[in-house]
């Protein structure tokens, strides 16, 4: 049976046209940023170099793609149109008259729509897991670096223990259907997700101890929001029904946080050991400040440059980890549209068809590249300061 196709030029213009909400949003951001560049601080300085602009734009591109996925993608990521099995890019579906811009895959789903929806999974899990890893690593790295001694030895031993595991082995042990039958993911989640609450609680307490009124409000908000997220994520019992996470997503999430927290811990520990020798820390110590006040309000703000850079790189690394999980079929559902699973599915059939493999490959690569470029530009800017 002959299909009508729209040709190479048609495909290119078609893809560009489908992304119209992204171009619009990028245009607005670019315009506003360049307009108010002077008052935007570090963010504004990103627009000084080509690398910075490129990195930021690529990251924002995927961010907006994830946000507007419903508008951009012409098909549902799971919808199968049997006649379009392994269809070449640009084939027109005779039923709906819609175009399979980047072709159909082995199960007759639209490759383009799957790539677009895949960005949602990656852009939710990767930054969120990185954020939690930052919280865990920072909360433990601060005392380890500041106090040194026995606390440091113990925590460093634990961190090295996790780091001695090759990531892939860790995932094969921690992300299995078997482990989801046990309570281990919930336990780990219960431990990890308490850290943000501790972190912000201590942050506010050390600073605003002298102002009980303000402190009470802040602590109440911390406990309320933290507790809400905690109940939603760990027990999957959000009373408002907004935050929910399926068991396999929780499993992945916990494993990724577990794998990347020790790295953050090490960096924070090293930075603190360096910064604590500075004069302003000695001054705070002489003033008789609480050690946690010094750690959170004197040391941490001065470590923010390298930490922001590391966070950028780490989101990229987490994206790669998610891809690895997808590639080995661990955790994510086999029909999930995320990029790693897409690469796994299509790379087995490369001899027959290559077109289903390329979109997720370039999506993942460009997103990680964008993050790395952004990190590089940020590093250069923070060195200048």
């Amino acid at each position: 049976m002959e299909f009508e196709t729209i040709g190479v030029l048609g495909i290119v213009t078609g893809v560009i046209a489908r992304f119209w909400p992204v171009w619009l949003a990028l245009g607005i951001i670019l315009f506003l940023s360049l307009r108010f560049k002077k008052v935007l601080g570090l963010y504004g300085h990103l627009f000084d170099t080509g690398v910075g602009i490129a990195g930021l734009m690529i990251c924002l591109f995927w961010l907006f793609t994830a946000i507007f996925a419903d508008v951009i993608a012409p098909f549902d990521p799971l919808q199968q149109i049997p006649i379009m099995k392994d269809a070449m890019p640009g084939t027109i579906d005779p039923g709906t008259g819609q175009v399979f811009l980047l072709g159909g895959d082995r199960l007759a789903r639209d490759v383009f729509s799957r790539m677009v929806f895949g960005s949602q999974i990656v852009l939710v899990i990767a930054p969120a897991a990185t954020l939690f890893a930052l919280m865990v690593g920072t909360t433990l790295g601060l005392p380890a670096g500041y106090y040194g001694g026995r606390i440091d030895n113990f925590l460093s031993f634990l961190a090295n223990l996790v780091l001695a595991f090759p990531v892939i082995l860790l995932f094969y042990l921690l992300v299995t259907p078997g482990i989801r039958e046990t309570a281990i993911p919930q336990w780990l989640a219960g431990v990890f997700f308490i850290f943000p609450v501790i972190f912000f609680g201590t942050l506010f307490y050390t600073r605003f101890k002298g102002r009980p009124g303000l402190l009470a409000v802040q602590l109440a908000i911390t406990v309320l929001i933290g507790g809400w997220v905690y109940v939603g994520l760990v027990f999957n019992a959000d009373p408002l029904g907004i935050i929910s996470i399926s068991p396999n997503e929780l499993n992945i999430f916990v494993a990724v946080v577990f794998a990347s927290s020790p790295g953050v811990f090490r960096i924070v520990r090293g930075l603190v050991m360096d910064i604590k020798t500075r004069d302003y820390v000695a001054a705070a110590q002489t003033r008789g400040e609480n050690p946690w006040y010094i750690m959170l309000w004197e040391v941490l703000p001065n470590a923010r440059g390298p930490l922001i850079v590391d966070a950028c790189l780490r989101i990229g690394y987490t994206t790669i980890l998610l891809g690895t999980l997808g590639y080995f079929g661990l955790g994510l559902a086999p029909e999930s549209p995320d990029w790693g699973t897409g690469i796994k599915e299509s790379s087995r059939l490369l001899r027959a068809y290559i077109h289903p493999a390329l979109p997720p490959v370039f999506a993942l690569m460009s997103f990680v590249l964008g993050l790395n470029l952004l990190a590089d530009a940020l590093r250069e800017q923070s060195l200048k300061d």
Partner: protein
Amino acid sequence: MGEGETVLSFIIRRLGVMALTMLCLSLVVFFLINLEPNLKKLAISQLDMRSSAEDLESWLQRNGYRQNFFVRYGQWLGVMPKQPSIDPETGVASPRFAYCREPAEARYSGVLQGDFGCSTKFKVPVAQKLVPALGATGILMFWVMAVMVPVSLLIGVLAGMREGSRTDRSLSVASITTTATPEYISGVIFTVVFASWLGWLNGSAASATNQGVTFYNFTLPVMTMAIYGIGYIARMTRASMVEVMTQQYIRTARLKGLSFNAVVLKHALRNALIAPFTVIMLQFPWLLTGVVIVEVMFRYQGFGFTLVEAAANNDIDLLLACSLVSVLVVLSTQLISDIGYALLNPRIRVQ
């Protein structure tokens, strides 16, 4: 290294920590592999899908999987005697796994005695499966290193020689790009370009396992693995080179009238290569993950392939041995990197 501490006592202390780490990790792995759902999975894979719950339970009971957790860990380690399986009716002792030629009496035979147990998936003793696999991976690693190290050092030195030059900028962007390309990405791209379009290379390394390594079947896996590390090492080398080039002694050498090339070759290079050495050693844990991806992708029967098979089939002894090997690799490379760093850099010998 503490003050006054000799290299020898430093190494001994580190080896002690290493042994402790391995003990802790093997306990964790042992715990995770022996979770109830995993044991069920093992029993099902050893019997068949339709076995009743009682059959599975009696299989686990008969083969000693129902003994106390610490007893079983002790048996694996070799500090407790391994028991043969006893028929509950006749009381006759028979070996647990006949295909591994285990004797039919209780004996101390664990990791400490050099017995890594029996692979339930491949139906051979673990050592018999693992040693050839490690050999195969060793060949792969050798070629990866032979490609990765010189290329990345060259790129790094060229880029760092003149900071901010056009060469520097383009090489830096190129290395950032390769660090954004994990193995499962570059593997697909290379296969598409070199195997599907050009047809120059073989998209599978399956033939390398038994027919030997050739350029045709081995280039793609080696390239795929090397490319991810190249960017990272090159960036480290570049940073180190840039730092060295701003040092006083380089300026002195330049003012002395030496040519730029002579300064780079005679003075800068040696000092600039200290940091990358550490980084290269610390690349091994990353390479292990890469090995798994590449071996699965190109169907090369090495260590990574074995690890995935062991994990997928919950082959307890094989997976434990794999974990032990990978953890040992990671820890010993860390140790070598620390010692090497101290030996190469006279300034930090006493810290």
